[in-house]
């Protein structure tokens, strides 16, 4: 078994569900021939350096996979028949290269800056969560000391708190997504 990397360009009119269908077809072709898929990366729609079949744009998709060397020639022929795939390139790669790319998908010069930003942001988020939890605990203690009749109201308040907490978590998720998109850019 050898490690390979395939980069292919999909027809620009194919997007979202139709694009995922094409990717799944390619994946199936690999897995049906005793191959393992390691990593799939959508590099997005890009302008081509020159026209291919009168198309100016195309979506680039990168797949790392493991397979027998005999399968590659057959795989290339199969890809050439597919009308949705404009061009392709298959290259054998080392294990180290893939591992590095999984960790840091950005160019090495920019990686240090982005990593620092991510670390600081996550720390801040954790601090916020801790503060929220402490506040809740204090509130609960105060409420326990109060009369039994109020218990029902407390439960309602707790529910509200939990909903608020969920909202806060959603916000954090959105922030994280934004960070990830920044890294990709």
């Amino acid at each position, binding site marked *: 078994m050898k490690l390979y990397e395939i*980069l292919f*360009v999909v027809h620009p009119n194919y997007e979202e569900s139709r694009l995922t269908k094409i990717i799944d077809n390619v994946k199936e072709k690999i897995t049906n021939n005793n191959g393992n898929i390691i990593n799939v990366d959508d590099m997005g729609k*890009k302008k081509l*350096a020159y026209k291919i079949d009168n198309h100016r744009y195309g979506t680039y998709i990168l797949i790392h996979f493991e397979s027998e060397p005999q399968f590659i020639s057959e795989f290339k022929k199969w890809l050439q028949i597919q009308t949705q795939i404009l061009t392709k390139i298959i290259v054998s790669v080392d294990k180290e290269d893939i591992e590095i790319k999984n960790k840091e998908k950005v160019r090495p010069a920019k990686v240090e800056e982005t990593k620092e930003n991510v670390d600081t942001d996550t720390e801040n988020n954790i601090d916020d969560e801790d503060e929220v939890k402490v506040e809740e605990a204090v509130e609960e203690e105060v409420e326990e000391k109060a009369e039994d009749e109020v218990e029902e109201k407390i439960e309602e308040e707790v529910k509200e708190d939990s909903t608020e907490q969920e909202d806060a978590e959603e916000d954090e998720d959105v922030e994280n997504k934004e960070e990830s998109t920044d890294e990709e850019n």
Partner: protein
Amino acid sequence: MAFINKRKVCKFCADKKAKIDYKEYHDLKKFLNSQGKIIPRRVTGLCTKHQRQLVKAVKRARNIALLPYSYNLEN
């Protein structure tokens, strides 16, 4: 007059973290001239090993339409 060694140091030998990859075509563009031709080793100052890797990467990038074969042709 003493001889002064003006030979440039290979960029990729100096910075071992920088790798030559055909997918990072923005970095490869620095090694092309205005026509889209690969600039010779005599000018770029790269060592033999890295110039060879660079040429391979540029040709792969051209094949997959990340870099043009020529800027002069009407695209």
